């Protein structure tokens, strides 16, 4: 009896951590194949964790509120990019520029988050697919604003930002002014490796914020809603309002996350950067072992490290193995999408099983 229990426990542990385990194994095979030095990989991971964690962390709060993965985080990313376009036009550089971008982007992100929350309240039970499509829809409006509005309705003075036809923003924007301004704020070198200390401090502060937030009244309300909307409602929690707040927070944080991400990259891909932000953040979170209903800060960091390890290693591994780097490139696209598909499916399957088990338990011992 006891043996069976232990076996079951191990089984359950393996199943619930299946995704990270698979990725650890995959990396264990791919790293030696790629031929990268450990030092290079550590430096690379250090940069990438600093670059991406904030975006991934922004997904946590909607999960707490039971709204699933917030595919609508691209809305926040778009808001951040609008802020960045404007400060590049005004030539405000360095940390003040970054802060100003965040300041401009915040009201836009709040507004977009409010729209997203309102829409999602009308699509309860299919938040994810709705927020996903909403991302596309707002992307259309974003393109309308940036490609046609800027330079026409919104004055843009710098010629190097504007397309040659006189309006619309160019495909790629050089963010030289704010490049690495947060990363290099507190210079720290360990051996040959530079550590973006200030970025880590911001991320740490944000982790503390999330931990604190979960203990506040609002955080507890969200958790209650995440567990059962009807019960929360009868307990007097304003369900719809709280859900909107959860999405607004997530959108604003995604906006800051995108600004941090782009200050590290240094160039902005006006019409694509935000799309990728959403997909990579979600894939990373899921690889870290999070599910649609439960995600912790640990999942975030584990996920970012594992996902980006694969990201760096797989093209080289593909080249060494088959002689085509392109293959590794496709492999990594496949893995990002495949992992989202598998984790979503596993979660839905588990939920269905749980429901069946709950129904069976009502029938009593007879069966």
């Amino acid at each position, binding site marked *: 009896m006891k043996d069976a229990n232990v076996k079951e426990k191990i089984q359950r542990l393996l199943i619930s951590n299946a995704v990270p385990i698979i990725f650890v194994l995959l990396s264990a095979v791919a790293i030696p194949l790629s031929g990268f030095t450990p030092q290079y990989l550590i430096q690379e991971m250090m940069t990438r964790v600093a670059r991406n964690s904030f975006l991934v962390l922004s997904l946590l709060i909607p999960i707490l509120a039971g709204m699933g993965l917030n595919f609508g985080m691209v809305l926040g990313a778009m808001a951040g990019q609008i802020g960045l376009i404007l400060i590049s036009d005004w030539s405000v550089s360095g940390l003040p520029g970054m802060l100003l971008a965040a300041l401009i982007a915040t009201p836009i992100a709040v507004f977009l988050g409010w729209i997203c929350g309102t829409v999602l309240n009308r699509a309860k039970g299919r938040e994810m697919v709705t927020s996903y499509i*909403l991302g596309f829809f707002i992307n259309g409006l974003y393109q309308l604003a940036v490609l046609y509005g800027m330079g026409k309705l919104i004055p843009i003075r710098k010629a190097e930002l504007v397309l040659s036809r006189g309006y619309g923003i160019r495909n790629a924007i050089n963010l030289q002014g704010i490049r690495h301004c947060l990363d290099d704020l507190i210079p720290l070198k360990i051996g040959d490796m530079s550590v973006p200390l200030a970025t880590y401090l911001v991320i740490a502060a944000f982790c503390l914020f999330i931990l604190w937030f979960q203990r506040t009244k609002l955080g507890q309300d969200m958790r209650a809603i995440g567990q059962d909307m009807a019960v929360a409602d009868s307990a007097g929690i304003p369900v719809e309002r709280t859900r909107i707040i959860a999405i607004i927070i997530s959108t604003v944080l995604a906006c800051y996350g995108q600004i941090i991400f782009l200050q590290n990259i240094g160039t902005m891909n006006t019409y694509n950067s935000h799309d990728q932000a959403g997909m990579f953040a979600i894939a990373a979170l899921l690889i870290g072992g999070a599910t649609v209903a439960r995600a912790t800060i640990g999942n975030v960091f584990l996920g970012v490290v594992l996902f980006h390890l694969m990201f760096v290693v797989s093209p080289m591994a593909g080249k060494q193995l088959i002689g085509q780097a392109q293959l590794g490139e496709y492999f990594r696209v496949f893995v990002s999408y495949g992992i989202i598909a598998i984790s979503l499916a596993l979660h839905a399957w588990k939920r269905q099983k749980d429901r069946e088990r709950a129904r069976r338990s009502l029938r009593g011992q007879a069966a």
Partner: protein
Amino acid sequence: MNDKLRSFIEAAGWPRVIIGLFLLSLFVAAPFVGVRVDTSLSDTLVRVGMNGVMVLALVPMVQSGCGLNFGLPLGIIAGLVGAVTSIEMDVRGLPGFLVAMAIAIALAVVLGYAYGLLLNRVKGDEMMIATYVGFSSVALMCMAWLLLPYKSPNMIWGYGGSGLRTTISVQGYWLKVLSDFMSFNVGPYFYFPTGMFLFFALMCFLMWAFFKTKTGTAMTAVGSNPEFARACGIDVDRMRIVSVVLSTVFGAIGILVYQQSFGFIQLYMGPFYMAFPAVAAILLGGASVNKASLLNVIVGTFLFQGILTMTPSVINSIMQTDMSEVIRIIVSNGMILYALTRKVQVKR
């Protein structure tokens, strides 16, 4: 008269009326900005024929309660494999097209069955998972296109000598085998692809006839009330699998019809977003997440493709800018969004 108008608008739904009027105004405005109406109409009809079957493919899954098939790329991939294999076998003309179709259908049945098994385990979350099943299968096939041992010099990269090209011409094989069957021209500008429309009509008829059979009725019952269907002794899971297989098969046929008219097979990331226009079209035609009819398919495809054809030419001539892509994004995703948020409202 007023009552009649009101009841018509109610039956058709506001979005369709608005889009319909918008399309009509585009057609009216066309001659004034130097765009020929007959050319535009012909283009619209050709596009309707090209995309119709793919839109039709969404019907079974909606009817069986599996939601909108965002996993359509899976069926499309089956069609692509059929297409490249038929070229590899060097069968030309109509036989080539039929060979492509046979291979595509066989593969689609297998893929659709597996896909159906998966969707049965994730009831309630089908749409999100379907999206990512579609995406990941496209990405998987990207690797496969590089590695599969196809040899025909018309399809592989000139250098290196392996791996399929991103676009493959079907010229000389089965370009327009359906479209040009009994096609006719009116004046120099209007071309009507009769064969393609006959084929589309045949597909619609098959779908209609299917829903009149016992299986088809059972499928609709599963979609409208699964508990009731189960109580009637219908195997719910089996019906759902049948609907998914059917949808995947129609998707595969749909892409072949598309390619024979378009003239090119688009591999790699080509099929990536192909589910979205189809979904937008059927929703524009008045389907909801859990109910769709053939009328929705035909009306929706015409409206959607009409807007796609007309906006670039007309709007661009009026405003001197190329806004069609942005308009397309906003209209199609706005439509999907509207459908996703609508059902709850009705329930209340």
